[in-house]
């Protein structure tokens, strides 16, 4: 059945990997594409970047982090459950080409959408240096898969519980000072992308960032996802999700991501309370 969850892996307490039957999207998606998902009839429409697919099996892979009601609903779904609505693939695909050496920086669950991009750049004949960054060891995901498609894999944790101790930018600087980087791609929490972008800007390295903003329809209709890029308003859903990171107004984006934080907090607490009551 379409939209059925076929496999579920708990990466950590709050991060899950879902393998979902979605034959059309499995076939048509490319690196960089995202889907819009509505878990159930009361759910909101949220964007999730596709982490991979198997066209033969007709499945797509998504990685979801529990941050609010909508993501919690997805995280709590079980194998055999069906997601009500999945539409995609949306957005413009990553422009993959051979440029030389790529520095790919993934933070937190941003590593998931980075996976197909790293894979594609490697396939295109580039040398790929990948940095995975997270707060601690438990939050490092997809390490083996990333290692498979990277020439070198560097792990950075804030607390030093795994790999090297330090921020993603520390790892980036070390690589950049060591070898010539032709292009960089960064995906992760907005604040991480802001500082990663400042780092590559310092060294004049062309950089793409994949943005994950609030969306409703995801097809260009609502404009909730608008960001300022080079002083112009762009829609992440149809013009992105990838943009020249050095042109993105990350401060504005961070504020806009918090547009509903009060409502989201109240709703999440109510949801958790309701879940506990049921169990």
């Amino acid at each position, binding site marked *: 059945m379409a939209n059925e969850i076929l496999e579920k892996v708990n990466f950590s307490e709050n991060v899950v990997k879902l393998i979902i039957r979605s034959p059309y999207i499995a076939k048509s998606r490319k690196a960089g594409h995202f889907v819009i998902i509505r878990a159930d009839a009361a759910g909101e429409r949220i964007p999730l970047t596709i982490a991979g697919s198997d066209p033969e099996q007709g499945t797509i892979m998504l990685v979801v982090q529990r941050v609010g009601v909508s993501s919690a*609903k997805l995280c709590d779904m079980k194998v055999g459950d069906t997601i009500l609505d999945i539409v995609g693939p949306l957005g413009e695909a990553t422009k993959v080409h051979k440029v030389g050496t790529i520095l790919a920086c993934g933070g937190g669950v941003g590593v998931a959408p980075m996976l197909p991009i790293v894979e594609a750049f490697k396939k295109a004949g580039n040398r790929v240096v990948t940095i995975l960054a997270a707060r601690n060891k438990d939050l490092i995901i997809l390490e083996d898969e990333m290692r498979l498609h990277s020439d070198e894999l560097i792990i950075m944790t804030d607390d030093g519980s795994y790999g090297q101790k330090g921020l993603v930018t520390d790892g980036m600087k070390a690589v950049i000072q060591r070898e010539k980087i032709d292009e960089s791609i960064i995906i992760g929490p907005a604040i991480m992308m802001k500082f990663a972008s400042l780092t590559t800007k310092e060294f004049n390295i062309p950089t793409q960032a994949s943005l994950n903003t609030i969306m409703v329809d995801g097809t260009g209709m609502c404009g909730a996802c608008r960001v300022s890029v080079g002083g112009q308003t762009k829609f992440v859903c149809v013009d992105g999700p990838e943009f020249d990171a050095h042109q993105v107004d990350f401060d504005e984006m961070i504020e806009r991501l918090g547009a509903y934080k009060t409502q989201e907090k109240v709703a999440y607490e109510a949801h958790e309370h309701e879940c506990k009551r049921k169990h």
Partner: protein
Amino acid sequence: MDFAEYLKEQRNQEWRKELRSNIKSKDRTAIEKVHMPEENPHVRNTNNIEVNTGLTMEMAMKEAQRCLDCGDPTCISGCPVNINIPKFIKNIEKGDFLAAAASIKETNSFPAVCGRVCPQEIQCEQKCFYTQKLNLPSVAIGYLERFAADFERKSGKISIPEISHHNHIKVAVIGGGPGGLAAAFDLVKFGYDVTVFEALHEIGGVLKYGIPEFRLPNEIVDVEVSTLTKMGVKFVTNFIVGKTATFDDLRVEGFKAFFVASGAGLPNFMNIPGENLINIFSSNEYLTRVNLMNAAKSEFDTPVFSGKNVAVIGGGNTAMDSVRTAKRLGANRAMIIYRRSIEEMPARIEEVKHAQEEGIEFLNLHNPIEYLGDDQRRVKSMKLQKMELGEPDSSGRRRPVPIEGAIEIVETDTVVVAVGVSPNPLIPRSLPNLNMSKWGTIVVNDQMQSSIEDIFAGGDIVRGGATVILAMGDGRRAADGIDQYLKSKF
């Protein structure tokens, strides 16, 4: 038999002749035009119930008597889908309301929708003999259409138009809004195997995400869509042709022709400073959250910001829908900001009147030039440039010109920008060879055929931003065009 002969043949039926002879024309014209009953404005602006409550049976039959059943029914020429207007109205006069509904459905699958949202005052009613020759208020064609459709729906005896034969030729309709649905209705009647592909999770397009419950309840859209399902139309939601699958994929699956009615997806902004502050929305976003996602109901997850001091920028029907929605979400002050005067607003007169009754403020001859935010980048006020009317512009309306130095700061915590939409770029981007205009609309010929022979298009993706009924008219024309094209091929 051509359309004029058909109308004549219908008009000459005995029952019509008899009805005409029952009441003298001068007695008919002496009847006063019916008033649509409405909910109390100060009650309705706190809830979502429909504003117009509909004519009673007696009111409808009386109003139907006003129609003179003209020999030359000019009203029909004002209808984009050519409803046989005198025939349905005379059926109402006769008291055969189900026959009235069936008459409308000969050419229009959505009478309950059109009876509510069509701008009849610039279409059929503007061409009515009363308006044209008698200088009297027209027959209330729209109210009567709605009456017939509502009667049929409530009777539980909804007529399903018959399909004479099935030719098993597959046609894809892209977009489940008014244009696509109208095309699907005609195509399935012609015998085609029709599938409608819709990007969103519900069928109805702007009828669902855009037009609010208090003007068009979603349930009414669902009932009219279910008629299409019963006629054999297949619906696939969450499917974006050009993304989920390509046109070529669908050709391989056996689709022989396409009708693209993907709508005017992209909201326009004014590109003024501060427009990306938090709590500044496009009308599409604001209305979609409330109408499609049920954001105002606590049991749904989608949030909406219910401001106390809401400014809606624009003077069209979407602006009226947005500002009246804001009032219903609890705004103390809900205001329209429009750069021209109230007379020049493109919104329907009825919508403006309803808004005024509900306590909406109108700041006409005001134009926003900048938004100011607080330390969290939430909008807190706007700078408005006061305008005056100058010489007429290309639209025939007097051009608004800024009054130098007349700038006002008005507090606001929510802004909804309703200054029009642009065509959705998804379909054109997936078809690099498609002939497009410089405005991003698809170029079509009289049969609504694009530069790619099996692809037809209509509605906002061709017009750039029009009305429900014009999209429906395009859908019908495209269905004819597709029929001719496929007959010449197969």
